[in-house]
């Protein structure tokens, strides 16, 4: 085997320029894929983090049918106190749940006494909300990092549009579940930066204030946001939870609750999926580059060395060994290109991590860092090397099947 490697390496060195060009092509492909995967991976994790940790939570539980009408924030589909208590008990007993936060959501009118506009309000228990979506505090650009009774946090765009400052008095007016209208005055305690996705431009008040605006005699809950201890266990935990809540039926024997992951609630999931598809196609392109370039080189190598193949076959080299020689040549080419690509890719990723890439996503400016797992680097490298070997197979088989007499006659 050592000798086969020696011959393969020397044959690669023999055609220096061609080897260099092919290895460079593989290197460029590997570098491109590594940088692309790392930057898009960073973009994805930042965005998923923002969506889950500053707004949605990892999972949400609603009364059955609420999500279908979520745009209108239907008050008649809130969970009654008894139902919420059952749900809270279920979540408390789950070892995978780190925190959960009940929310009372409603749509209403917002006025600074001179101008009026619409607003969506989340009534929350501040401590529980900040435990469930910890990045929410980082979105508070001005004001207190918490909220008390009689206070409201409003989105930045609304504050700018209505020229509202911290400490200003505002009024929130909302239609109650029975159709009557009620209003309540709040003091602006915080201004929130906008975020991408549902709830990214909502205001926040204390949940008891929300219940007061809606004239609820007993506290109802629109949704329960859930934070898991391990985000990677999202789907198994969700399945578990679905199993548990399936047993909770209303008087008509229909399911009482429904559970959704952030993926089902946020449109960003489609962007994330698109990024995955793009990454997949970039990988396919890399595979095509490696496949075509190595196959081309190996076909040339076989063609140029027909007499040599004839000689080694004539002196008794078995077809399997002739095949191995060419496969190992392709393997060496793939390994060299991949290793150099990994090193250069690693250096570029390091530089990106030191400098960061500023990227405007809508109204937000993101500071991207290249973020790639060693397992991803390993997977990409193994794919490239396997493809390099696969690309050498056909020329190698052709070489091993050559009749020595024909090969020796070749001019």
């Amino acid at each position, binding site marked *: 085997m050592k*000798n*086969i490697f*020696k*011959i393969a390496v*020397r*044959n690669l*060195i*023999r055609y220096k320029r061609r080897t260099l060009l092919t290895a460079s092509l593989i290197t460029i492909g590997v570098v491109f894929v590594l940088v692309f995967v790392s930057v898009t991976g960073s973009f994805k994790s930042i965005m998923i983090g923002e969506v889950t940790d500053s707004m949605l939570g990892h999972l949400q539980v609603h009364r059955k049918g609420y999500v279908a009408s979520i745009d209108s924030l239907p008050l008649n589909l809130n969970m009654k106190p008894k139902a919420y208590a059952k749900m809270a008990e279920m979540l408390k007993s789950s070892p995978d749940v780190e925190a959960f936060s009940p929310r009372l959501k409603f749509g209403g009118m917002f006025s600074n006494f001179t101008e009026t506009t619409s607003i969506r309000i989340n009534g929350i228990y501040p401590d529980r909300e900040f435990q469930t979506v910890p990045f929410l505090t980082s979105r508070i650009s001005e004001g207190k990092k918490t909220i008390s009774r009689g206070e409201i946090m409003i989105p930045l765009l609304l504050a700018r549009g209505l020229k509202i400052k911290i400490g200003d008095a505002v009024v929130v007016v909302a239609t109650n579940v029975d159709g009557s209208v009620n209003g309540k005055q709040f003091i602006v305690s915080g201004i929130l930066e906008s975020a991408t996705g549902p709830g990214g431009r909502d205001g926040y008040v204390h949940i008891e204030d929300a219940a007061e605006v809606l004239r609820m005699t007993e506290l109802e809950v629109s949704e329960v946001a859930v934070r898991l201890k391990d985000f990677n266990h999202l789907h198994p935990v969700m399945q578990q939870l679905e199993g548990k809540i399936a047993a909770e039926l209303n008087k008509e024997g229909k399911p009482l609750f429904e559970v959704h992951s952030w993926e089902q609630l946020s449109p960003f999931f489609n962007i994330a999926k698109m990024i995955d598809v793009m990454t997949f196609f970039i990988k396919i392109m890399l595979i095509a580059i490696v496949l075509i370039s190595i196959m081309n080189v190996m076909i040339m190598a076989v063609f140029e060395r027909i*007499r*040599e193949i*004839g*000689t*080694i*076959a*004539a*002196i*008794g*080299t*078995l*077809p399997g*060994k002739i095949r191995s020689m060419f496969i190992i040549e392709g393997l060496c080419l793939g390994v060299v290109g991949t290793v150099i690509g990994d090193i250069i890719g690693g250096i570029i990723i390091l530089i990106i991590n030191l400098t960061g890439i500023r990227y405007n996503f809508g109204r937000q400016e993101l500071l991207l860092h290249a973020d790639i797992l060693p397992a991803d680097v390993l997977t990409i490298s193994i794919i490239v090397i396997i493809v390099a070997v696969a690309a050498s197979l056909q020329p190698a088989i052709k070489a091993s099947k050559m009749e*020595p*007499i024909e090969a*020796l006659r070749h001019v």
Partner: protein
Amino acid sequence: MALIKAKNISKDYQTEDVVVHALQEVNFEIEPASFVSFVGPSGSGKTTILNIIGCLDKPSAGELMVADTEVALLGRKESASFRGKHLGFIFQDFNLIPVLTVYENIEYPLIMVQNIEPAERRERISRMLVSVGMKDQGDKYPQQISGGQKQRVAVARALVTHPALVLADEPTANLDSQTAYAVIGLMKKMRDDFGTTFIFSTHDTKIVGEAEVIFRLEDGKLKAKEIKGGIKQ
């Protein structure tokens, strides 16, 4: 007992329209440790007969026993194994592997074909390098040595596996006459030293004289067998 026994060997090639009879019912026997030449003009069938003896080609008809093996019946893999075990080849164009040094070229069949232990390998190669007069040239690559030296290396490569038979197709065709004689002399010396049978083809009348047994071919037919010392059949 004869090393090679050929009985009614024929070889036909089908071209587009016609059938070429490259060999027609050729019969001969070759004894071990003999120094044999097949001679004849171009197209007489010299190379064809060497290819058939060397298991590189199969006869269209007839029987051919080489080292007690009916070589025409061997499959592709068996042929390769047989060649590696019993035969050595010397080519007109030397056919050394350009990416290997002189030493490595001689070593090649020992590793890749016969899988000989390193210590024995070193010993055999050193002996062979001395025998062919290339003792100090082991580190050179084929492109750094002359044609005559290349053919010496080819002789060493053919003999290092201790074959029963070495086949050389026009081994001196690309050499000047002085070097050609030197190479034939070397082959003869090797036959004397190792007891290996040498069969070579040539159309060079001067070189032919060096053979001890000469088979004359013409139009695919064996016309005469001459044994040095004047016996003609």
